[in-house]
């Protein structure tokens, strides 16, 4: 289901704002879709477009230097708020593959990992350097759990072992759960009270 990802090499686009919530990533009025496709055009919609529908030329993703960037460097606590999985769907559909921050909200992180979008949390020093050096080429190595800056300096990032394995192998976690159906059935039969 998800595309396996071992390593990502890309220039960065830098969005320093803190606490960017999923309503900004994709506003609620676009959630009336019944598909997960084609949401890239709605990504950061109300920051990206003026009220008349024209592009806001100042907005990060509309600037020429952002073209082709697959890594977003964001301020602290990216992806807070609503649980909408439309947020990572929109980011991926737009062409982004990773976000780097000092904190990433729980539900957004979980949704991202299930879609092969990389939520990367780095230390303050690495983050500060990335914020101050937009457009630099960064290597995210999922297998090694490291991010390497143009200087060659590396920093490791925390990632759940199981999530890392699924990303590298392109494994759909539903299959893992289905393989435990006997254990699930046994739990249902032997628990002391029934819901």
């Amino acid at each position, binding site marked *: 289901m998800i595309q396996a990802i071992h390593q990502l090499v890309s220039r960065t686009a830098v969005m320093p704002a803190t606490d960017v919530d999923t309503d900004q990533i994709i506003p609620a009025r676009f959630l009336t879709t019944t598909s997960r496709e084609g949401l890239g055009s709605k990504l950061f919609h109300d920051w990206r477009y003026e009220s008349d529908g024209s592009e806001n030329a100042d907005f990060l993703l509309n600037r020429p230097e952002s073209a082709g960037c697959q890594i977003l460097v964001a301020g602290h606590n990216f992806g807070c708020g*609503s649980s909408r999985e439309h947020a990572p769907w929109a980011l991926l559909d737009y062409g982004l593959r990773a976000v780097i921050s000092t904190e990433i*909200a729980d539900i957004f992180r979980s949704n991202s990992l299930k879609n092969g979008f990389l939520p990367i949390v780095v230390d303050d020093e690495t983050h500060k350097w990335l914020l101050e050096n937009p457009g630099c080429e960064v290597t995210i190595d999922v297998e090694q759990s490291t991010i390497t800056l143009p200087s060659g300096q590396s920093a490791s990032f925390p990632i759940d072992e*199981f999530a890392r394995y699924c990303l590298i192998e392109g494994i759909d976690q539903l299959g893992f*759960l289905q393989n435990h159906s006997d254990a699930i059935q046994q739990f249902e039969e032997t628990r002391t009270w029934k819901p």
Partner: protein
Amino acid sequence: MNSNVPKTLFEKVWSQHLVNDETPATPAILYIDLHLIHEVTTPQAFTLLREKGLPVRRPDLTLGTMDHSTPTTPVRSFKDLAVVGESAANQVVKMQQNCKEFGLQLHGFESEFRGIVHVIGPELGATQPGKTIVCGDSHTSTHGAFGALAFGIGTTEVGHVLATQCLLQRKPKTLAIEVSGELQPGVTAKDVILAIIGEIGVDGGTGHVIEFRGAAIEAMSMEARMTVCNMSIEAGARAGMIAPDETTIAYLKGRQMVPAGKTWNEAVARWLDLRSDPGAEFDKTVSINGDTLLPMVTFGTNPGMVIPVTDVVPDSTGDASFRKALDYMQITPGKPLSQSRVDVVFVGSCTNSRISDLQQAADILGGRKVADGVRMLVVPGSQQIKKEAESIGLDRIFVEAGAEWRESGCSMCLGMNGDTVPSGQLSVSTSNRNFEGRQGIGARTILASPMTAAASAIEGHVADPRPYLQVAS
């Protein structure tokens, strides 16, 4: 595990639902007792089931409603209800089809039990202490008020639960938030949770399950406790929980989905045993003095940017995100919010749409008028609450004051069902998010309690509700 080690409420519920415990290599497999579903975050999950040829494993543990993209326009019959927009209408039809095809119970338009998903779960008694409850909605934390472990999930996980009734989860950390003392008149559960978020920040709970405890929490009604737990996610927390007690039991007794007879007595004994053991350790503890809390209002674009209604807006303009928020809100540092003219007042949402919320707003509005130029919407959380409010005449108080009385739904909380705040207008809202554009493109939102919302509607600017209480007594 050594049973003599004191356990927290969370740890008890967690350990009772482990199909498999976590290891360094694999997350825990957590069994889910109740899966609440709605029209917005499920269609892609049903598509996945269909593609894989999978049934829903436990239709009996799945309960559906329609709330997010449904209109709240008053109608004589739900046959007359026109969903706003083609894609929203399609989504509603898909929800009906999916529930029918997979054999799931749906409280659709014709059901007298339809309402906001986090309102009807407790109302029907589907929400019970000790259950694991999930929904594709971050405000699922609401159900933690009953001592359930309840949290929001994404659509992929909705698919996992539909297919296997389980989720892969890492065990979160625990955070105890102790609210001591007694709340003053005019200070409500909403003010408590806003003050907590102001204190710990919008990421203060990240990675944690909160247990709210202390005298001020114990004194709260179930509806007030739901308001507190509802906004746990606004502090970034995975879930919020409150230990079941006699208040919980009294609320649940006789509701249609709770056990009856001998099973009821067994359930009550089990529920009352869930409270955190004396000496149980939390990863983190925060203490708040309930005696000194005041009515709270937000001034920025996240729920952590919050002040007592009597304060002036702080000045942190050195911080670019803070400056951007105040620019968006058109609010000046150093000035009180009472100088901000209000265009819209919204009483509703899964945070504050229950009967006691409506009663509190009505107590202030009774015999008074909504100020000229202010549009006030009152949206009950469910059709049952609507019926109850009408039976005690609250609807007439609202209508006579000049407010609109609507059908139930999420309404103006999230601007995806036709109820929106026009661009640039200032809204005082009892909902849970003051994010940019949350209530409509360019809408400016101030979060407040139902009392503060009602007082602000009367005065036409952000107002302290407490003078109205003194007049009343």
